[in-house]
């Protein structure tokens, strides 16, 4: 069986047992449930600070009814952040490279923001389909364009996360293959490629965090329009 570069993204399966369960449950092990003490250990304090900061940042632009979404958005952020960062370790599988997972997360949440808006304030939600101050002849075309862009949102949300992480992992694999192959032939070029690999890994750490943040931020933006 010839391995291509894309085979790192096939959902891992051992003796018929899908191992993606492990990849998704392992990040939850990094969040120990805190006890009832006022002053807990270092890890819990740091995680509390991180959760608090994320929730604060997400909830500031939202109005009072939007604060009901604090738990789902913060937990989504923590899950995506942990999964993305853990995927950068060698020999790990990143579930967020799977289009299925990202679409499964993006589509229902986007639909929820849309339905909340259409149910509670249909006029305002539909009014977002026409930006203020458009010239009258452009109105039909612009409404169609805005409707299309509205329906593209869940696709874009899911595919953005998938594509960014897949491309990153693929690049890391390509450049590390180049480094290893060049080592006996041209060691100097191999060292340069190794430097590129190190820089790329730092970039991928940043991309992992940024992509998780962008996912949740865009959802909160779609929520702001509709709640």
């Amino acid at each position, binding site marked *: 069986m010839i391995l291509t570069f*894309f085979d790192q993204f096939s959902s891992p399966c051992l003796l018929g047992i*899908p191992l993606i369960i492990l990849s998704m449950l392992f990040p939850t092990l990094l969040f120990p449930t805190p006890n009832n003490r006022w002053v807990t250990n270092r890890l819990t304090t740091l995680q*509390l600070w991180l959760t608090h900061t994320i929730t604060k940042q997400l909830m500031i632009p939202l109005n009072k009814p939007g604060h009901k979404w604090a738990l*789902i958005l913060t937990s989504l952020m923590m899950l995506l952040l942990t999964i993305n960062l853990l995927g950068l370790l060698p020999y790990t599988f990143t579930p967020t490279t799977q289009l*299925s*997972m990202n679409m499964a*997360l993006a589509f229902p949440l986007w639909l929820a923001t849309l339905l909340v808006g259409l149910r509670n304030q249909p006029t305002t939600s539909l009014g977002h389909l026409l930006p203020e101050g458009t010239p009258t002849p452009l109105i039909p075309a612009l409404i169609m364009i805005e409707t299309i862009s509205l329906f593209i949102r869940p696709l874009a949300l899911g595919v953005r996360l998938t594509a960014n992480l897949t491309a990153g992992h693929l690049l890391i694999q390509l450049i590390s293959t180049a480094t290893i192959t060049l080592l006996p032939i041209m060691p100097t070029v191999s060292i340069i490629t190794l430097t590129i690999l190190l820089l790329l890994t730092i970039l991928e750490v940043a991309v992992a965090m940024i992509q998780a943040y962008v996912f949740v931020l865009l959802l909160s933006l779609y929520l702001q329009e509709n709640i």
Partner: protein
Amino acid sequence: MPQLNPNPWFFIMIMSWLTLSLIIQPKLLSFILTSPPINKTSTTTKTNPWAWPWS
């Protein structure tokens, strides 16, 4: 591209939502904040100006 294999799509979807809702959310709920979030007060505090310098 192996991500487009529709075979594990449903399983991955269910697993991701189960992880998110049944495991991560209760863990994050059990974090106790040191000060609970409060609304902004509608009245601002009155400050009395003073005539002497800071030092």
